[in-house]
C-alpha cells in the first residue's frame, strides 16, 4: 500500500462522493457526503504539497469536515425540510449525466491535454468533474440548501485543482481562504433561515418572482 495507492484511492473516493451527491434525495446524508468529500480533498492536497505547515491539515479537516457540516445540519434542523422534493433534473438522470461527463472529461484530458498535464490528468479530471458536479447541483435542484451544498462541492473542486498545480502556497493564505468559506456558509445559512421564516419553505421556485416590469 504505497502513496500512489492512497492517492488513487482518495481520488476515487472524491469521485464517488460527487456521484453520490448527485443521486441523493435526503438532505442529511448529502451534508455528510460533502463533509466526507472535504476530508478526502484535504488529505489529497496533503499528498501534493511539499512543505506543509503542520497545523493546516487539522484546521482544514475541522473546518471542512466538522464546522461547516454542523452549521448546515443546524440550519437544516431549523428549516425542518428533510428531502429534495422534485428536482429540476431527476436523480437517476443526474447520475447518468455525471458518468457521461466523467467519461468525456477523462477522454479529453487523457488524449488532448496529455502534454500539458503529464501524469496528472486523472486528478485534473477529478477536479473538473467535482466543479461541474457542484455547478450542476446548484442549477438542477430546487432547495436552497442544496444550492449551498453545491457551492461547497464546487469550492472543493477548485481547491483540488489549485492544490494539484500549486505546490507551495503560504499557510496564512490557505487559512484565509478557509475562513472565507466558513463565513460564506454562515451567511448563507442565516439567509436560508430568513427565507424559511418568510416563505415557510426553502424551495427556490418561490424565489423567482422578481422580473422586469414593462410599461405600455
Amino acid at each position, binding site marked *: 500500500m*504505497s502513496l500512489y*495507492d492512497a492517492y*488513487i*484511492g482518495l481520488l*476515487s473516493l472524491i*469521485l*464517488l462522493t460527487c*456521484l*453520490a451527491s448527485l*443521486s441523493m434525495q435526503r438532505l442529511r446524508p448529502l451534508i455528510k457526503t460533502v463533509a466526507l468529500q472535504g476530508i478526502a480533498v484535504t488529505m489529497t492536497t496533503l499528498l501534493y504539497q511539499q512543505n506543509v505547515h503542520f497545523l493546516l491539515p487539522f484546521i482544514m479537516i475541522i473546518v471542512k469536515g466538522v464546522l461547516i457540516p454542523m452549521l448546515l445540519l443546524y440550519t437544516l434542523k431549523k428549516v425542518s425540510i428533510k428531502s429534495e422534493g422534485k428536482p429540476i433534473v431527476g*436523480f*437517476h438522470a443526474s*447520475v*447518468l449525466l455525471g*458518468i457521461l461527463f*466523467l*467519461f468525456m472529461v*477523462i477522454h479529453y484530458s*487523457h488524449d488532448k491535454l496529455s502534454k500539458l498535464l503529464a501524469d496528472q*490528468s*486523472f486528478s485534473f479530471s477529478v477536479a473538473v468533474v467535482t466543479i461541474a458536479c457542484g455547478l450542476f447541483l446548484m442549477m438542477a435542484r430546487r432547495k436552497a440548501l442544496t444550492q449551498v451544498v453545491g457551492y461547497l462541492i464546487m469550492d472543493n473542486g477548485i481547491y483540488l485543482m489549485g492544490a494539484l498545480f500549486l505546490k507551495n502556497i503560504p499557510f496564512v493564505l490557505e487559512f484565509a481562504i478557509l475562513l472565507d468559506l466558513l463565513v460564506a456558509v454562515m451567511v448563507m445559512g442565516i439567509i436560508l433561515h430568513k427565507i424559511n421564516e418568510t416563505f415557510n419553505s426553502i424551495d427556490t421556485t418561490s424565489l423567482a418572482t422578481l422580473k422586469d416590469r414593462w410599461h405600455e
Partner: protein
Amino acid sequence: MKHLFFALIMIAFAPLLMSLIARVKAIFAGKVGLPWFFYYHTLLKLLQKTPVISMHTTAIFTTAPLINLAVMLFLFAFLPLANYRPLLSFYGDIFVVIAFLALARIFSLLAAFDTASSFSAMGAARDVFYSMLAEIVLFTIFIIFFRLTNDLSLATFAIEGKIELFARSTFFPLLLVAVSFFMLLLQENARVPIDDPNTHLELTMIDEVKILDYSGPYLAFMQLSLFLKLLFYSCFLANLLFSQSLVTQLCTIALSLDSNSYPLLYAFFKNLIFIALVSAIYIAIAVIESSMARLALKKIPKYSLSALVLAVLAAILMWRNV
C-alpha cells in the same frame, strides 16, 4: 477430474451454507437458530411428498423446476473453483452461462404466469424488471474483465492470474468491482436489501412469490436451484477474491507446506481456504440481512444505479491505467 470432485462437494454444501446464513442471523437475534442439517431434512421431506398441481396449469409448470435444477447443475461445469480448470471452458462461455441463466429465469417466469395467480404474475413482473437492471451491471463487469484478460471465458477470469485483487495497479478497481458484484449478487438472489426471503406478505415479495404454488418434489427442486444459484454467484465472487499467490504464500509461510512436496495436503488447504471465502460471503449476506431492512420497491432502481456507478468507476480507474 479434480474440478468435478470439488464441484460436487460444493453442491452438496449448498444447503449447509444456507443454514449458516440462518444461524448467523439467529446470533444477531439472540437465538440458537436452525439445526445445521435443517435444509437437508426439508429437501428430503419434500421429495417424499405428493405434489399438488393445479388443474389450470400446463406442462410448463411441472417442467420449470426440472429445467431450473438442471441448468444450475450444468452451470457448475463452467465455473472455475479454487483455481481448478472447469470441465467446460471455451472462448465466449460467459455468454452461454448468461443464456442458460436467462433460460432458467424464462421458465420460472412462465411457470409463475401459468398458475393464473395474480400474485405470482406480479412477482414475476417485478423480477423481470429488476433483473433487467442487473444485467447492465453484469455486462459492465464483464467488459472490465474482458479489458483485463482479453478473453471471454470464466476460466481465464479466475485462473490465469490476470485478475488479481492484490496486484498493485488493479487493487482499487477490483475492490469496486467486488463491491458492485456483491450488490448484484444480493439483487439477483433476492436477498435483503432487495427482497426479504423470510417475508410472507405477498404484496412485497419478489422472488419467493414465484414459487408460491409449488409443492412436494417440485418445491424441493426449485429450492435447491435457488440455493445453487446463490452458491454460483458466491463462488464467482470468491474466485475474484481468491488469489493464487496469496494462498501459496499462506501455505508456505504459515504452514511450511510446499505445493511440490505435499501436493495432496496443499490442495486440501487450498480448497479449505476457498470454502472459507465462500462461507465468509454467506456470513456477509447474513450480517447485511440482520442489520438492514429491505428497501422500498421504488428505491431498487437507485440501488442498481449505485452498483452500475461503482462498476463504471472501476472501469474508469482501470482505463486510465491501460
